[in-house]
């Protein structure tokens, strides 16, 4: 039983988005979901959801139309790699920056 004089600060937290801070700014490629290919979106059923399962940062929602929280998504691309329907494309962040090539 620890002594109350000791705060024993540890790095321990509930896993979830933001566990490692606002990591969205680390992203160089953004996952873009094509709901016309996405299995739960197409079937209207809570199925597949491999993107939700594999996301190491818990930023994909387990919804009929899965959503990715870009505030925390590091752009690792695991979801795109795992998606059996090839519904997720990794697109360079340059495309979303004001004054970027395509703007």
């Amino acid at each position: 039983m620890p002594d109350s004089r000791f705060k024993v600060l540890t790095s321990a937290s509930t896993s979830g988005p933001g566990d490692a801070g606002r990591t969205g700014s680390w992203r160089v490629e953004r996952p873009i979901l094509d709901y016309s290919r996405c299995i739960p979106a197409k079937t209207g059923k809570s199925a597949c959801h491999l993107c939700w399962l594999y996301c190491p940062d818990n930023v994909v929602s387990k919804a009929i139309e899965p959503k990715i929280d870009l505030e925390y998504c590091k752009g690792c691309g695991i979801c795109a790699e795992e998606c059996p329907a090839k519904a997720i494309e990794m697109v360079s962040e340059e495309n979303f920056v004001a004054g970027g090539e395509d703007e």
Partner: protein
Amino acid sequence: MSEKLIDSGNNAAAMAVQLAAAEVIAAYPITPQTPLTEKLSELIAAGEMDAEYVAVESEHSALGVCIGAASAGVRAFTATSSNGLLYMSEQLHWAAGARLPMVMCVVNRGIGAPWSVWNDHQDAMSQRDAGWIQLFAKDHQEIVDITLKAFRLAELVHIPVMVNYDGYYLSHTYMPFELPDAAVVKEFLPAYEYAHALDPQKPESLNTVTLPDSRNDINGVKQPGYMDIRHNLHQEMRLAMDVLEEIDADYQQRFGRGGTPIIDPYCCEDADYIVVAMGTLANQFRDVVDRLRQEDGLKVGVLALQIYRPFPTAKIAEALQSAKGVMVYEKGLSYGNQGALYADLKSALYPYPARPQLHNFIVGLGGRDIRTEDLCQTLKSACLQDDLSSPEQTDTPQWIGLQL
């Protein structure tokens, strides 16, 4: 019932660990520690100890297993020596940073190269900044008592504890000692409980990448940053000295031994000159002190340092500040500088205006024989030395027993 027996230092340590009811033992054999963990494996195999013995392929893994066990809320123990301790180095820092309580016996031995299996303190001294509490035993009885206190200390303050004792001088020699009563030990050392014990029903992220700044977690609870965690490790390590004294007082009440958990002075009250040493060397100096007092009328004393990290700065400065001279004899050094203990002591005394003249002696590296006669002569001449030598000369460590 407590039990009096005559056995080796390694077996004394093993029996203390058995009494402490450690639940996971993971160790890799290395001389002179090997008989300690062999004894533990025998006790477990014979059903005399209810613990898991995990055979590992290296010391790095041994401490890794203990880190895993302590993370799961299980009392863990390991032991090593010399290069084995160095191979653990990364995990040492991890166990401390993660605030995981566990106990490790370090049976002190010189570090290769060249290979040496004999005693000195370089192994422990080289790991002084890892964030472990480092205690030193002078005899077999202290091995037993300090090991039992170490488990309670580690679990109260959540900092791992290293119990150091001299290879061969203690590990392989036989001495009488008393083994405390198991039922009283159980009262003294309650079960280990860990608030963050691994639990599939309550998943947590532990010691993942921790940001420079503190932040709110997904529940809105403020989580400390790296620097905050490290600051508290330091502060609480300093505070651990008070807790060790409290534990020692409780131990003394229950088992009748104790009273000097931080520093153990011998003939220091009226001493003009005080030797500071750790481990068996401090006991050897009791003979030297007796002789110089008797034969030369020199008022000398010896102060055994029982804890090296956290360094008992105030206690030691208080004990030494009124002496004319302090002679630090040590079995290790910070290569290219001085003895590490000497440098620490010098820094502890610096704020005191009446600080004594300091001398540094390096002895017994890699098991070089430490002759009591040499200790008598060097101590005597340091006491009688007039202050004609330059500050640089006095501050330079003297090597005793060189055969160049």
